Structures are given as structure tokens and as C-alpha cells.
């Protein structure tokens, strides 16, 4: 039996997938997106214990985890939306806001801190005119801080997407940004 609403899902009605079944949740997601989420959950056997792995995969597919997506996951796994929300907000890796096209992460580990990461971050904020956790209006860049990528030999470290820039100085910030403009 399929939960028709979130309330039903919360009461622990377990979802069993079949071709005709459709999750009816109040959401703005398109059908193929819901299908994608279901596929991800299915690949982990709709196991509640795998929820962190499911969220990882969903976030890498959609870029972020908005409330609607969380509701669908909750429905499919048969847990409350609050449970999913609790996990998403607990772990810093998950975000409910979309990131920019080129997400910038400044390492704020101790090694980078003592070698001047704060100044690099200030320069980035000044240059992009946004704060930490924000995205530029043109959706190109977003800034976040992370704790140690483990490349302490290159401190201070800035990551743009997957690319790691080492020994970044405040003066070098503009040059890095220019690569992506």
C-alpha cells in the first residue's frame, strides 16, 4: 500500500513500489525527478539505515536537497519528513540551498588558518560581494567553508568545484576567479 499523503507516510505506512504506483505529495517536483529519487532509494533497497548514502547520491544528482526532495525520500523510505530534515541539517555536507555553478570552498582547517586562510576568505567575499553560504545573483559562484581537505602542505587551500588551488594569497584570488568568468 502506498502512502497517499505525507501524514500517512509519517504514520509508518511502508511504500512498496510497483509500476502503477505514484507518490502523491504536495510538491513542485516533476514526475521524472520523483522517479529519479525513487530509483536512488531503490538502489539501496529502500533501507532506512542507508539514508545518508541516499542523501549523498540525491545531492550529487540535484545539487542540493530542498524540502520537496526530502519529503519524497521520507515517503519512499517510510520515515517522517522531520527525520530526514533532522539528518540533512545535522551534517554540514548536505545543503538545502542551491550552490553556484562553481562552488568555492575555502579550507578553514588549522593549518590553513595559521597560514592566512581568513584573509583569503575576506578577499573572496569582497570580490564576489557575497557572504559564506551565499550564491552570487548570476548563480555562478557560491562560497562555503570546509574543514581540512588534507592538503595541508599547500596551505592555504581553496577549492573551486573539484579543483584544488594551493598556496593561495589574497592577491591571487582575482586570478583564480578570472579563470571561471
Amino acid at each position, binding site marked *: 500500500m502506498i502512502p497517499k499523503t505525507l501524514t500517512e507516510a509519517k504514520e509508518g505506512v511502508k511504500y512498496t513500489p510497483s509500476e502503477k504506483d505514484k507518490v502523491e505529495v504536495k510538491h513542485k517536483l516533476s514526475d521524472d525527478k520523483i522517479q529519479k529519487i525513487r530509483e536512488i532509494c531503490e538502489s539501496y533497497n529502500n*533501507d*532506512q*539505515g*542507508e*539514508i*545518508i*548514502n541516499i*542523501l*549523498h547520491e540525491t545531492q550529487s544528482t540535484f545539487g542540493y536537497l530542498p524540502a520537496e526532495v526530502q519529503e519524497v525520500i521520507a515517503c519512499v523510505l517510510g520515515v517522517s519528513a522531520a527525520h530526514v530534515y*533532522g*539528518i540533512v541539517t*545535522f*551534517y*554540514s*555536507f*548536505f545543503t538545502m540551498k542551491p550552490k553556484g555553478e562553481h562552488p568555492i570552498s575555502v579550507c*578553514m*582547517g*588549522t*593549518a590553513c*588558518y*595559521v*597560514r592566512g586562510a581568513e584573509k583569503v576568505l575576506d578577499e573572496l567575499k569582497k570580490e564576489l560581494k557575497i557572504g559564506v553560504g551565499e550564491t552570487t545573483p548570476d548563480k555562478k559562484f557560491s562560497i562555503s567553508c*570546509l*574543514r*581540512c*581537505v*588534507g*592538503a*595541508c*602542505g*599547500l*596551505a592555504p*587551500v581553496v577549492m573551486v568545484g*573539484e*579543483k*584544488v*588551488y*594551493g598556496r593561495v594569497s589574497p592577491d591571487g584570488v582575482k586570478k583564480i576567479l578570472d579563470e571561471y568568468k
Partner: protein
Amino acid sequence: MHILVCGGTGCQSSDSAKIQSNLEKELALKRLQDDVQVIRTGCFGFCEKGPIVNVLPDNTFYVEVKPEDAKEIIDEHVIKGRRVERLLYVDPEKEKHVEDSKHMGFYKKQLRIALRNCGFIDPENIEEAIAHDAYQALGKVLAEYTPEETIEVVKKSQLRGRGGGGFPAGLKWEITRKSVSDKKYVVCNADEGDPGAFMDRSILEGDPHSVLEAMAICGYCIGSDEGLIYIRAEYPLAIKRLKIAIEQAESFGLLGENIMGTGFNFKIRLRYGAGAFVCGEETSLIHSMEGKRGEPTNKPPFPSVRGYLGKPTNVNNVETFANIPAIILKGAEWFASIGTENSKGTKVFALAGKINNVGLIEVPMGITLREIIYEIGGGIKGGKKFKAIQTGGPSGGCLTEKHLDTPIDYDNLLKAGSMMGSGGMIVMDEDDCMVSVAKFYMDFIVEESCGKCAPCRIGNKRLYEILDRITQGKGTIEDLAKLRNLSSVIKDTSLCGLGQTSPNPVLSTLTNFEEEYIEHVVDKKCRSGQCKNLSYYVIDEELCVGCGACLRNCPVHAITGEKRQAHHINTDLCIRCDACIAKCSFDAIRIQSEPKILAHK
């Protein structure tokens, strides 16, 4: 002939993959691809001078290699047999080129057990690992030892948990073995959350099989057939290599069903973290693996009795596991002969901060900080004065000059007010303000506290606020007593290890650098000039040409001066925005702890 190229995260960020492909291209051009093999290895440890290229058998150690150097290495070294002098490491003291790693100060004092294969084998090729004795210990244990005998070996070696707590590994195994249950788990804690620590990552990237093998040995000892590795999602390369290693080990029959035909089954799965420092604490880690918020619970019951999914679970750190195969093969007596009375073997440290040789080192227990900083680390960057070394991450403390000759082991570090932790070592010099450092760690703790218990959630926030006030110049002498008081309450009343150790950075800086705190609150001075509100912006009259660039850009009109005359900053008006510094082309503006220029450049 072999050419080893470092493929650790640090060196990969500096294009080591390109170096490898260029070397291979050059070899193919010279038709040498069958005689010379290029191997991408794990971390060499010497991250400061990366990317590293090591040519075997003559063990030539090239540093800071660029992709365009590939041709010269092949032409000169491989074909003509002449070392490329300009790429060799230069001994900073003797100013002479050093040809091989054995003669480098960085490697001389090191003893590699956990890192034995890092930088020597291709971590993505199990055959190389096997050629370096991987899975031999597992075979020996399965064929010759009973689980009890194996535990006895581990106990005799006196190996203590390398994750920070220092609990005897053999004893933990024994307790988990004695717990009665139909199902047990082996968990490897690879949630290396300490900022500035990267030894677990390097082991997993450089020699994943040593950890897999040890987990299987542990499984055999405690009676478990399933292992889980909880690894940070921030380590994509380590995850990738672990996946490859597990797959290869399974296809070789070294993991999975009926290992080596002995009837012993053991499979290993990966679980990912999602960026929560508290998940390094074992009860939190177990909750996180179960798909919950990573919040800790009271101990007892310990995971050895009731852990993952309510079953007995043996949680050990990556480095602890990496030591196991070597202990089995070389014997408990050999391992116990290294180190100090209560701390045996070696410890891997991630040396970082204001030090010349940043990198990963493995040293015998009992070595002094002085040896680590000045001999292995090559001294302080830029010839500055050593001020403090922070060990143990956010749960540890700062040690000072007077601790430099203390032999390092679990007990001595605790006595000195710090802890071993997982092994991060951050060196600080005279330019670092210790109040700001304490504030930095509290900021980290406030953000990472899971919020379950009030002392940690609220207390640390208050500690942070007091420290913030002090760095703003608004602190009072009473604040110092408040810091001490609150810290001891948090220590005594917090639920888990994170909370109980969280005030350590404050306490250790308060003990070792009290005079600096007093300067901040009484004299309203920051000797390092790091606390902006306590520092002065001053124009060096000898360097100022009176161009007026700063004057025009000062948003609060704090700068005065006639054209072509030295300018002056009115400290009372100055808001310390740095606008003048950005505009000055003559480097004439300085931030310092005194309102007057002390010495001209």
C-alpha cells in the same frame, strides 16, 4: 627501473597526474616503456616539496617536479644516467643537493610501520601490495593461530588505539570476543575530522590493503564476518582507492566467502560520513552508520558490548589497524621494543603550520618535539621564532618551548595539558596570537557541537563569546577567571569525549600564555598584531613619499598629511579597514602592537 610518482591528494592538486602521463609519453617516444615502469604511489609524506618523483633502484628523490620536467628526467636520468641536479632536494643548512631520501633530514629520524608501503606501491594494484607482504599476516593467523592466540599477540605488543584515546587494542578485541551474540561487527573509524590531520587519509590512499587485512584479522579474532569502514565524504580519492582495493581483494579470494580456503568469511562495506566532527566519537559514529543524526550516547554500554544495530562492535582507527599486519609478521616483542614504557611502537603525525617541511611523518614514541620540529620539520618558516605547537586537534592543547624536550607519548602529552589525539601537529610562530588561536578552536567546537547536552552546546558558545570579547579589546581581568571556571564545568559535565575535551584549547593557552591574555585585557595590546582592534595602523615615515593614495581612500578621513610629506594615521579615528594598505605602493603602512614605529625596515 621504476619511476614512482606521488599520487596523494596534495601532490595530485599540483598536477602529479600530468607528470605521470608526460613521463609515460616520453618513455613511449624513446621506446622504453617496457624497461621503465611509471607507478603512481600513495603519499611520500614530504608534502611541502611536492609533487615528488622517486627513481628506483638508485632512490633518487626529485622534489617540486613540474609536468614539463618529465622530458629532462627521462633524457638525463633514465637514458644518460645523470641525475637532474636542479630537481634534487637542497639541504637548507649545508646548501647542498641531497640525492636520496635516506640522507634527508626529513626522513632520517623516521621509522615507518603503519606507513611502511605508502609511497612504495601502487595502491590500485593488489599484486604490488602482495609483493610487499600484504595478506601474509592474515594467512599466518588463519593457518597457524587460534583467535585467542592472535589476541594474545596484539595484547603483548601493547598497541594502543591511535585514534586519540589510547585504549589498548588487544584488550578491546578480547572484550568484543567475549561478548556473546549471533552477529558482530568490525568498524574502521576513518572519520578523520581534526582540522590539520591527514594521516588516515594518506594510509587509505597509499596502502588500503593493510587496513582491509587487519580488519579481516580482527573479524577472525572477535568472531565477526562483516566489517564497515566509516569514511569522510571529503576524501574522494581515498574512497575510490578503497573501493578498488576491496574489489581486487575479493577477486583474489582474500576477502569475501571462504577466505584462502579456510572457511572464514569476511566482507567489508563502506559507509560515508557527511561532515560532522562529532562522528569521530565511536557512539556517534555508530548512530551515523545506522542512518541517524550522529549524536553520542552514554558509555557504558560500550560498543564492544552493544554497538552497531545493537550488536557487539569493535571500533578501531585506521592507523591502529595499519599496525596490525606488521605486528603479526614481525612479532609482538619486536613492536614492544620500540617506544616508551607505556606507549609502544610508532605514531604518525601530520606536521603542518609555520614549519619548513610540512608533511606526514612516522616516528617512534618517545621522540622529543625538538627533534620533530627542528630536525624532521626543518625549523620554523622564514627563520621566525617558535611559539607553540598544537597537538591533538580541537581536543588537544598548545605546548610551548618548555615542552620541547619532553619525550612524546600518550601519558606525557596528557601531563603537559594536551593529548595525542589522532596526531595533528600545528606549529605556530611569534606572529600568532594565542587568544585568537583559542578563539579559532572554540569557533570550530561551537559549530561542531551536536547540541545534545547543554554544557557543550551552551557553555562552549559562552566561551567563544568571552574570547571574542577579549580579542575585540573589550575583555576584563574577570573574564579570565570566568573562562577557567566555565571550562572546568564543561569538562566535568559534558556527555561525550568531544564536550569533555572541548575547553582544552582555552585551558592550555590560559596556562601557557597567561601573560598574553593579561596583555589583551589589561594593557589592551596584542603583541602579534593579529587582533585588529588591539593593534595600531602606523605609517613608516621613512618609506612614505606622501603620494596621498591612502589619504584619498580612507573612508573615515583618519589620514592627514601634506603632499610629498610623510602622512600620519589618527589611531582614534582609524577603523582598521585595510583600505590604506591595499592602496599603498610603498609598503609604508604597518599593523603593530604599539602606536609608534619600533624599528624601520
